[in-house]
């Protein structure tokens, strides 16, 4: 327990900054062609018609351009924490502008980006590197992201345990059935089997319930993260919710400390990209 909370996590924030920046940038670029529908009140009656959101919708091309530039600065490491805070603000406005499109990934990311604005993610892979001692606020910010991931898992497990469909073991079938190609997918014969469908249902509850203790305990940490990655890759393939799944999977990186990351990634990459050797 102590090992988990006291270990340094100075490397992954830099990796997360680049990867989450790229996810947001790709999502932003892919939204541009739909701006004519999204921000046209004649075609979208769910658009908020009040205050700042109306103004941003009317000037969506300017908003998209500025957001895109901020994301590029964020990925490159320009402007440090100020840029990180701007990314949080623009992500928040983007959520307000595209309310009907929101996924849980966006909502999780909203708070993670808020905590991340206080983290030092400019130590590596940045054009404006930070030097010197790792700041205490940054450590608390990373701990906040970890506690936030734990909250997501614990609350979800609790919700599932109290939900009728999950208690009866039929929730997994319903969840899969919502997607149009389900009946032609390889999952259909599996999920249509009562024993398998209910087993997967209860296994998911157990996995969410055990995630936090398994991650905190060093011996089961890799197993818990690997299992969650497999589940999210499966969901990404089957449901096509690439943004939500990638956002959740990128959060797992914060659960590993510097020593664990150095063990996973080859020495050559550390030497070339992180300007440090594995003997650190």
């Amino acid at each position, binding site marked *: 327990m102590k090992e988990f909370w006291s270990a340094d996590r100075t490397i992954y924030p830099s990796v997360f900054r680049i990867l989450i920046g790229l996810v947001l940038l790709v*999502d932003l670029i*892919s*939204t541009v*062609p*739909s701006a004519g*529908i*999204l921000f046209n009140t*004649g*075609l*979208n*009656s*769910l658009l908020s018609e009040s205050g700042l959101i109306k103004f941003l919708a009317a000037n969506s091309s300017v908003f998209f351009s500025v957001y895109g530039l901020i994301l590029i600065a964020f990925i490159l490491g320009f402007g440090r924490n100020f840029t990180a805070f701007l990314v949080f603000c623009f992500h928040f406005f983007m959520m307000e502008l595209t309310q*009907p*499109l929101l996924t*849980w990934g966006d*909502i*999780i990311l909203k*708070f993670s980006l808020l905590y991340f604005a206080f983290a030092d993610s400019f130590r590596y892979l940045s054009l404006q590197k930070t030097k010197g001692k790792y700041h*205490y*606020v940054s450590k*608390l910010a990373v*701990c*906040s992201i970890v*506690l*936030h991931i734990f*909250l*997501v898992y*614990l*609350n*979800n497990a*609790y*919700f599932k345990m109290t939900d*009728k*469909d999950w208690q*009866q073991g*039929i*929730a997994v*079938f*319903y*969840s899969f*059935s*919502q997607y*149009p190609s389900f009946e032609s997918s390889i999952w259909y014969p599996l999920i*249509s*089997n*009562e024993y398998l*469908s209910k087993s997967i249902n209860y296994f998911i509850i157990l996995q969410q319930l055990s995630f936090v203790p398994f991650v905190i305990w060093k011996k089961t940490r890799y197993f818990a993260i690997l299992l969650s990655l497999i589940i999210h890759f499966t969901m990404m393939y089957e449901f*096509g919710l690439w943004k939500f799944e990638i956002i959740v999977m990128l959060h797992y990186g914060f659960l590993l400390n510097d020593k664990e990351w150095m063990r996973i990634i080859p020495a050559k990459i550390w030497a070339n990209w992180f300007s440090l050797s594995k003997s650190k």
Partner: protein
Amino acid sequence: MNPKRLLFTLFLLYWAGVYGVTFFAGDNLKSSFRDTIPTGYRMFAPVTDTNYDVSYEFFRDGELIREIKFSEYIHKEYDKPFYQNKSAYVKEKLYSGSLKILDFRYQKSLYDEVYRNKKNDFDSLTVSSKELMGIIDNLKNFPKLYLAENPEIFADSVWISASRKPMILPFDSLYKGDFTYRIGNKIFFTTTQKLNQ
């Protein structure tokens, strides 16, 4: 007080508050904090146990000239190259993503009528509830987009009907877990729209 200790105390208080509100507060208190702190992730999976579709019948001078189902239209949109998937996703969410809310209000009004002897207020809600009006307006907006994408079609009106179809469990086809199964497969909302071309 040592600044480090002060920061750590604030950090602990904040997270004790977040976890406390998440697990112990009522829904009203939670919703008042929703925008400022993460107060719970009740990820609604399954989102619904009912499938929905919308049928659009285009008319010119009283004659049916084209009939489309939204589900078939959106299938074709998703079959386009992957970089256009977001456009398909946007259309799916705007024009059919909120049908479960419309159906929920329909179910609730019908349930109140059948089991609580209340007046069925669904029709009045469709012209007074801001939330439902937005959903219905988007049902009417889709034909405009469809005609803009298919300029060869000249229609002067469209008949719109939204239908519901509860999912059947293959391993327990007689399962009737809640009110949605008792209503069954049916068209639960219809409207019409004049089109100006």
